[in-house]
């Protein structure tokens, strides 16, 4: 898939040109297909579905052409390609899944390369760990709100080095001092002599210039593009139906697969009688996998009808009677028994707790969550002699390549991955299960196959955000400040499953304690944070979900800090301000959000404001949610205010979009979402029983963007981490009911309802927790594992 803008129309100031380009294109009726104009039209086939789908990224030859070894032109590094025709193509290391990274990373390169956003084409990076390893993640992937933080220097340096080489090439040719030349809109100019050359004219000469080891980057005051709300480059194709996602790929001769995975997680296929399916017109064949059945048809509908007509029997296996209450009980047992792996320990936690003026304890529970991106899982696989071509959206191209190769029994380099736009990631496409399954199916078929999961499969066979059980306690001094802090996190470890080398040697999963071990308030004087890994039954798989560790921990910490404020009769904003007296960036966003939200101004009955402040992914954010609770317990969102300091900003539009969308994503989960199991099966199946927030339930959102000169912070997940505690704190303000378990149980919010649920779970005594941890520390000191 390639995005390419048309030739420049006017002017030299990048932002304005891009804005005008859109106007012109829209006014001129050229909306259809413009952004994908460069996608090579697939050779016409007799297949009307292929011909009519418009521009087809079938071969993705563009990626091979520009990212491959055969590219002819100037290729100073992994990211920049300039052809003799002056076509600038940027190879974008991160994947576009809605967060706007194609635009953001283009801006980083274009700023220093001195090209307009309207002058560049974009291709996604092919699988290549050596060239495209994400500097923070240390593998080729997009996630953890790391893209801009990782790309900020390398991509600008790439642009700057290329520009220096192009200028030097021109200056040499003209016999002038490079310092007298400058670059602008893909040209080098020597104003003194009136000479200029396009980058395309310089590709050969520039290719002979050694790459400079050191390049000076622009001072932020010189930025032309960075910091401006440049229009997104991926969106025109997304409003006229021409954007292609993995699920949209059409390959000549392709057939469609619809899948039933064993409904009991971890179960296997016993047998299938497909005689009725075979009688359905359009059904081609049945594919048996160890844990699933796929029916192949001429189209999705035939395959689906065929699958529904199959009589399938399953071996449910060990999870046949598994249910959520048993999982919670098991996790509670494990959490209590410990031992906990220590993430932070200092001071005398138990002693300070005992001696404190006031003691507060609480237990919080958070459910399994499914990702449910709008685009259900899909992949197209064409198995060819000795290898395969795969078209799918993935956040981890090289991992997908390696895992697909394993299924296919071929070397990774025999598998070509054509990465596609992603219709919502949220962590789902860090997994490769859908690609692996499509490979397993296609392996048994004599034609290319597009596997499409129904929404029901997507929801019932996801890898889920872990359930968490957090026990937390604090001792407060006479001023209400915590002098003792103890927090035990229990849950399944995503790191241990997905990236085992990321585990600490002592058993701490850094993701599971992120922002619990280092709260925004800093480390408390006597503090213990430990982690107990719970092992879910085989077949129940946990995964990264938007906001990763911080989504879970900020709910706990910011709910609990709210509890502390109320326990000592202090205003939640004033209480946090005091704790943040040495954290000026956090205090600044808190003050700004509180002021803009009208904190402290009167509200109607059963209406309240909840506040949170957080530092995560390198950004500081405060949020205020205003919500009303009816006498029946229904929650209405009235207003959301958030202030963000994410340091230097590449594109403020993207920051706002991510904050808005991230908050709504988190509120949706808090209000309605939890995956539960009964008899080993996921009880939820589609949007009717796994509710999504809708437009009529969405309040106005005010995002206050406080630009600072700090290094850029991540933004894609920060709204999500902020959402739930801001809402439940607002509910407490409105009703006096403390929500300690998600999703929010409306029965607790009915007027006059008695507190129940998570609130009555016995907290683990802080002394017991400390003793357990100390026991572990003593063991470690003795050299035991």
């Amino acid at each position, binding site marked *: 898939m390639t995005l390419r803008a048309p030739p420049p129309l006017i002017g030299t100031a990048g932002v304005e040109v891009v804005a005008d380009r859109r106007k012109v294109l829209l006014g001129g009726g050229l*909306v*259809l297909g413009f952004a994908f104009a460069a996608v090579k039209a697939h050779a016409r086939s007799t297949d009307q579905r292929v011909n009519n789908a418009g521009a087809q990224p079938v071969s993705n030859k563009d990626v091979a052409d520009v990212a491959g070894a055969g590219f002819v032109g100037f290729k100073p590094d992994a990211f920049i390609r300039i052809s003799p025709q002056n076509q600038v193509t940027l190879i974008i290391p991160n994947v576009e899944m809605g*967060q706007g990274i194609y635009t953001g990373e283009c801006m980083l390169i274009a700023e220093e390369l001195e090209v307009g956003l309207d002058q560049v084409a974009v291709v996604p990076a092919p699988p290549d760990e050596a060239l495209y390893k994400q500097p923070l993640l240390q593998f080729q992937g997009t996630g953890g709100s790391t893209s801009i933080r990782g790309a900020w220097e390398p991509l600008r340096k790439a642009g700057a080095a290329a520009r220096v080489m192009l200028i030097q090439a021109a200056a040499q040719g003209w016999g002038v001092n490079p310092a007298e030349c400058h670059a602008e809109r893909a040209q080098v100019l020597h104003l003194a002599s009136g000479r200029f050359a396009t980058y395309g004219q310089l590709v050969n000469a520039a290719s002979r210039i050694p790459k400079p080891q050191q390049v000076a980057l622009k001072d932020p005051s010189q930025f032309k593009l960075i910091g401006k709300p440049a229009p997104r480059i991926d969106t025109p194709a997304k409003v006229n139906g021409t954007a292609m996602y993995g699920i949209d790929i059409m390959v000549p001769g392709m057939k469609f697969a619809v899948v039933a995975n064993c409904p009991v997680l971890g179960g296997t296929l016993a047998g299938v009688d497909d005689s009725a399916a075979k009688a359905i017109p359009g059904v081609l064949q049945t594919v048996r996998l160890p844990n699933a059945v796929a029916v192949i048809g001429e189209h999705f509908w035939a395959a689906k009808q065929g699958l529904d007509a199959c009589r399938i029997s399953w071996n449910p296996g060990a999870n046949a009677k598994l249910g959520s209450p048993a999982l919670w009980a098991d996790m509670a047992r494990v959490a209590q028994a410990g031992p906990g792996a220590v993430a932070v320990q200092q001071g005398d936690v138990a002693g300070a707790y005992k001696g404190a003026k006031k003691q507060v304890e609480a237990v919080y529970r958070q459910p399994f969550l499914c990702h449910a991106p*709008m685009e259900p899982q899909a992949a197209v696989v064409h198995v060819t002699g000795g290898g395969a071509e795969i078209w799918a959206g993935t956040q981890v191209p090289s991992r997908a390549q390696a895992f697909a190769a394993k299924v296919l029994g071929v070397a990774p380099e025999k598998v070509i991955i054509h990465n596609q736009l992603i219709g919502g990631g949220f962590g789902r496409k860090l997994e490769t299960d859908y690609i692996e399954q499509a490979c397993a199916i296609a392996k048994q078929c004599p034609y290319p196959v597009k596997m499409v999961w129904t929404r029901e499969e997507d929801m019932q066979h996801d890898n889920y955000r872990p359930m968490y059980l957090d026990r937390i306690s604090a001792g407060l001094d006479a001023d209400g400040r915590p002098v003792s802090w103890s927090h035990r996190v229990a849950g399944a470890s995503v790191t241990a499953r997905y990236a085992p080398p990321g585990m600490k040697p002592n058993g701490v999963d850094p993701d599971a304690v992120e922002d619990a071990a280092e709260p925004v308030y800093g480390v408390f004087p006597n503090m213990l944070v430990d982690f107990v890994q719970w092992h879910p039954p085989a077949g129940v798989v946990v995964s990264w979900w938007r906001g990763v560790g911080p989504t879970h921990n900020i709910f706990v910490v910011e709910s609990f800090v709210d509890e502390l404020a109320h326990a000592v009769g202090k205003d939640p904003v004033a209480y946090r301000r005091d704790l943040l007296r040495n954290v000026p960036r956090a205090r600044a966003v808190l003050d700004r959000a509180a002021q803009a939200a009208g904190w402290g101004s009167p509200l109607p009955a059963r209406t309240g404001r909840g506040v949170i402040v957080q530092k995560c992914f390198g950004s500081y954010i405060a949020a205020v949610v205003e919500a009303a609770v009816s006498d029946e317990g229904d929650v209405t969102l009235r207003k959301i205010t958030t202030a963000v300091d994410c340091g230097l900003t590449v594109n403020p539009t993207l920051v706002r979009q991510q904050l808005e969308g991230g908050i709504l994503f988190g509120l949706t989960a808090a209000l309605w979402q939890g995956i539960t199991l009964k008899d080993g099966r996921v009880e939820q199946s589609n949007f*009717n029983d796994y509710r999504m927030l809708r437009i009529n339930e969405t309040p106005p959102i005010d995002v206050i963007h406080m630009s600072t000169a700090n290094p850029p912070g991540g933004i894609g997940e920060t709204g999500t981490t902020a959402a739930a505690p801001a809402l439940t704190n607002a509910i407490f303000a409105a009703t006096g009911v403390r929500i300690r378990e998600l999703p929010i149980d409306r029965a607790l919010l009915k007027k006059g309802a008695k507190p129940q649920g998570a609130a009555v779970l016995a907290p683990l005594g802080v002394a017991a927790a400390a003793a357990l941890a100390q026991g572990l520390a003593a063991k470690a000191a003795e050299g035991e594992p």
Partner: protein
Amino acid sequence: MVAIVLNVNGQMRQAEVPPDMPLLWVLRDVLGLTGTKYGCGIAQCGACTVHVDGRPVRSCVLPVSAVGNAAVTTVEAVGQTPAGAKTQKAWLELEVVQCGYCQSGQVMSAAALLARTPSPTDADIDIAMAGNICRCGTYPRIREAIKRAAKS
């Protein structure tokens, strides 16, 4: 299987399909019009919204045999209608779109709203758009973009 003729985006298109096959899959898998998206298959998300004689319908639950001679318009051609063009323009000006997967359906629902209610109120927007889920949370911008389009 029956041979049917559909009026799609002003063209007569032929397909050999079962009469109960939802229009969505005829558009996507037989005619290759993949701009119309599959999200839920049970009329819950609106990703599959198309216009049938100008009315927004969920094509995932509309049997193709029920379309008859009616004119089907998909997102690929809605820009040729005044309301569709206004909608797409406002969508870009207000930067509504994130992943974009729901936006075909959002644009179709909004264009149908604007065609019959040129100056919609917030309540009109709620009613017309509540059937379209956006997982990326673009709702506040959708609301503003509809208002912008109404003014243009």
